[in-house]
């Protein structure tokens, strides 16, 4: 059990490509951190640097209070679960799980005992003598986790461990990972590009983009108060609606002429005359009466999901897409014009140029 600190970590590849610009992250003992971002954002590179599979170009990396920059992966007291499981194909499940312990020089019966204990936790005892080839995807994933657990490491590292599983199994294993991590209370770093996985697993979420950290915090904080337009657009499904807007005097004009009154108009005054981006999540657009409407959505496509219905459409006189999420009980047809009202407490304003958040 240990804290992990990344201080001013930079990574530049030999071809000059800067994968990580300046990463600072303090991970607490027993915390589950999820690194999330689009592909190529540097999340995997960061994880591999913690593992020691990739050298850091600059900065200090601590696990516990030990600087581990120059330690071999095996000396860092970490365990890693790979996307493709990386099980040794010619070894039985038991030997796969015990291989690390064997290399540590542990006596055979102790290895056997530890492997069996881990197998019990993961409910794979009956598979111990099988070869990886004979297992299903989910079972292989369990073995890969067993190999990590058995070593009782200070830090678990997960590199997109669920990407190769089908949707149903993914949900199941997600819960399993959460349960195990809480049970063992081991510090964990988890990399994924799937924002649902990220939101559900994380104690704290790190959203990365282009080798930089965009925002760090508890998942709901990031969801409710994204610091940048990127974070706002990345988290949540379907994604946030963005519209060009302008502040004029004390009024907020969205998409040209849609005037939206805010409760705290005084706050807006300081950005008078500035171009901004207005953001609102689909579920914060509420169907309302004509009189209250901020927007009129002309519905092009309807996705009834049961509990909710997604309306895809555009504002009259504009061709930019807008999505609204409505309770599933009401029926819509294509071509409907739905009056919508923006939830005043949950709208987001970003600077059009810097893409930084403006409103509180």
């Amino acid at each position: 059990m240990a804290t992990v600190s990344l201080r001013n970590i930079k990574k530049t590849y030999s071809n000059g490509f800067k994968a990580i610009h300046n990463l600072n992250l303090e991970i607490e003992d027993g915390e589950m951190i999820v690194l999330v971002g689009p592909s190529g954002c540097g999340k995997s590179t960061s994880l591999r640097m913690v593992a020691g599979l990739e050298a850091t170009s600059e900065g200090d990396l601590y696990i516990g209070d030990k600087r581990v920059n120059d330690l071999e992966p095996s000396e860092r007291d970490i365990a890693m679960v790979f996307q493709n499981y990386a099980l040794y194909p010619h070894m039985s499940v038991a030997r796969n799980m015990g291989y690390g312990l064997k290399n540590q020089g542990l006596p055979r019966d102790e290895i056997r005992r530890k492997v069996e204990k881990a197998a019990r936790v993961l409910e794979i005892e009956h598979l111990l003598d099988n070869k990886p080839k004979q297992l299903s995807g989910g079972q292989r994933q369990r073995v890969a986790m067993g190999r990590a657990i058995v070593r009782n490491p200070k830090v678990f590292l997960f590199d997109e461990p669920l990407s190769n599983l089908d949707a149903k199994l993914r949900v199941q294993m997600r819960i399993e990972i959460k349960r195990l991590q809480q049970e063992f209370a081991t510090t964990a770093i988890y990399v994924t590009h799937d924002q649902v996985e990220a939101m559900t697993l994380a104690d704290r979420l790190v959203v990365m983009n282009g080798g930089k950290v965009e925002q760090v915090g508890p998942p709901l904080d990031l969801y409710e108060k994204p610091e940048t337009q990127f974070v706002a657009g990345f988290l949540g499904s379907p994604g946030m609606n963005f519209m060009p807007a302008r502040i004029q005097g004390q009024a907020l004009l969205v998409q040209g002429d849609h005037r939206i009154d805010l409760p705290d108009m005084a706050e807006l005054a300081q950005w008078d005359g500035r171009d901004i981006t207005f953001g609102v999540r689909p579920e914060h657009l509420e169907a309302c009466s004509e009189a209250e409407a901020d927007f009129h959505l002309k519905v092009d496509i309807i996705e009834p999901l049961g509990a909710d219905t997604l309306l895809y459409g555009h504002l009259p006189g504009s061709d930019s897409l807008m999505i609204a999420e409505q309770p599933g009980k009401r029926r819509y047809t294509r071509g409907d014009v739905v009056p919508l009202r923006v939830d005043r407490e949950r709208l987001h304003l970003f600077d059009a140029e810097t893409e930084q958040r403006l409103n509180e």
Partner: protein
Amino acid sequence: MIENRPWLTAVRHLVLILGIIVIGLPIWIALVASTNTSASFVSGVMPMWFGEEGLNNFRRVLTNEGRVLGVGVSASWMMWNSFIMAMVIAIGKITISILSAFAIVYFRFPFRRTCFWMIFITLMLPVEVRILPTYEVVASLGMLNSYAGLTIPLIASATATFLFRQFFLSIPDSLAEAARIDGAGPMKFFKDILLPLSVNNIAALFVILFIYGWNQYLWPLLITTDENYYTIVMVIKRLMTAGEGNVPWNIIMTTTVLAMLPPVVVVLVMQKFFVRGLVEQEK
């Protein structure tokens, strides 16, 4: 693929049968000839059915009774020479090429690509092409008439290195990374992971290389003058020119059959691995 075109089937069978005859007839003749007396050939017509002399021929050849082979050593001794040569070449080639492929794929060292390409271009330089300089080197090192001279110049193999390289490249990187995290150093990774995964490839290569080594003709002919180092393949040709006008076909064919046997045994025994090593990729 299911097709029902009778004439195509007929053509296919015809081609197959012709192929079998072309391949099979010489073997048939060799087998038949090895069981006849030398007198059966005097008429100039090849006998097409087995004679009575089979066991006797094999005994005479294997023990070189009455110098039937025209040299001072027996066929059994020459087969032993061939066996040593084939084994050393096969095992040597596999050992060297698996290690060099391991180095090329898993280590980052200066001129790694250059090394690979240097190994690769030796494909263009088989023994036959570099035979004079190689002879010079072997002679200067005093390795003429020795097992070392017979085998060492043939051991380096670009083909096998290339095959192992391709196989290693197909193994996911994460396997090597998992082994690193599990505390396995490079040689331990090689021994515990790479070698067991390569078993099928090694077996397939062994079959090919054993036969390659066994069938060597030119090289042993060139560097051996001492009869004790003659190989079985060499002596067949000698027999055809040694006879005083009367070519001893029964003895030649007996020797030929003997020379064919070990490769056949190797192929039969290792057939299963051979096919698997060439076809199947471990997932």
